[in-house]
């Protein structure tokens, strides 16, 4: 059986590393980039089963990326989960209304819980 493929767009090196190594251990194929531009390019080129997205990125914000992904017929079916430090309700609402499957404020979850949530969208 083919491995499920996950793309992580996150600029915080440590978090990127934690997610990447943990998801690889769970048996997923993980690709990780730190800018919105690289993320958008990659998602056009390859098919992913899930996108894990940060909001504050060096070149753009996660909402813009989500919008572009959902507007593109080629990528709009890819489920997206936002994992961000922004925990305000209006940001969460915005993410969900733009089509994110879930919005996980980092401070409210342990690594295991984030991984479990991500896994639940890949099953």
């Amino acid at each position, binding site marked *: 059986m083919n491995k499920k493929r996950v793309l992580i767009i996150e600029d915080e090196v440590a978090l990127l590393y934690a997610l990447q190594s943990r998801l690889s251990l769970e048996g997923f194929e993980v690709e990780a980039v730190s800018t919105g531009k690289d993320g958008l390019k990659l998602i056009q080129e390859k098919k992913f089963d899930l996108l894990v997205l940060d909001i504050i990125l060096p070149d753009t914000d996660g909402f813009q990326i989500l919008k572009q992904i959902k507007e593109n017929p080629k990528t709009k079916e890819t489920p997206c989960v936002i994992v961000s430090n922004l925990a305000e309700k209006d940001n969460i609402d915005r993410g969900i209304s733009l089509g994110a499957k879930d919005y996980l404020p980092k401070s409210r979850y342990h*690594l295991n819980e984030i991984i479990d949530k991500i896994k639940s969208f890949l099953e």
Partner: protein
Amino acid sequence: MEDILQPKKNQFNIIKQCREEGLPLWECPNFLFLFTGVISVVSMGTAYLLASYYFPPEIVIVLIGLVSFVMVVISYLVNQGIVRITQSKKELRKSNEALSIALTEIRKEKKMRENFTTMLVHDLRSPLEAVRLIIELLQEKKVSLSSKDLHDSLMSINHSVANILNLITNLLDITKFERGRFLLHKRIDDIQKIITLQIENFKILALSKGVKLSSQLADNLPSLLFDEYALDRALANLIVNAIKFTPAKGEIIVQAVYVPKGKEVEKIAKHYGIKWFINSSSPSIASISNSVLVAVTDNGIGIPKDKLDKLFLTFSQVITAQGTVKTGIPLGTGLGLSIAKAIIQAHRGIIGVFSQENQGSSFYFSIPTA
């Protein structure tokens, strides 16, 4: 506020009313109208009585004359009072307007400071959260970590901690700047030392992101008069920003060259292969002379044209800019560049940037020889 500035008037208490209007009793219109009434009644009564005892009309005429004179004096006083009330009302309205403008400004500033603090806390929390998650990863029993995994985890933690420390140092520096306590202790020294030290300091930060950091220093760099700590901070901020905006597999190079005379930058840049300075046609670049030029060049994401002139802001502009946006370029960037600018200007140098989107950026500064 309305209540304090426009107190309710007591219609029946004339003395209190006069005090509220800020007028003496004899200029208070309400009192004077009352007084006029009393005078009129008394004078008419007196005139009637006098007229019934002393018939001669001269006396009545003199009396009427006297009463009229009193009335004229009273009218004059009434007029004075009304003029003063109108004036004080006008002044009141003016100061009222000024107050409400000031209040709006204060509210705006407060809101900006609040947003700034939110951004700041966010910038500090973000790497800390990442460190927490890595520690959780290391603590997990079911994960058996190879020595490479352990090394990579520690590198990531190191990366986050370095970013936190840099931001905290910037905040302390800004507090010193704002209180006028950022004092420069300039000494003649070699700038090579600073560059080599900072490259060493940030090598791991770059490496943990998969970015190569190196330096190229000309052999003929003269000694310069500078404050070691300040220049350390200026260069550190340029390097940290370069790392932040350069994705994995990118490269950052710190170059330092000596420019003996004006308009020679291009020739020297060509010689050392500093591409952004060739054909730059920038007058501030051409004006660099008898200085050491330091350039931190990356091949990262670059900066959009419309944002280039908004990079080197003052601290208060950073607060305003960061206070009005919700997400965007991380706060650390704005603070770092504003600190670098203040430091380089205090060394009579120039600071600037060349950049193109998707091509990379080159932040440079010059320090004149003593």
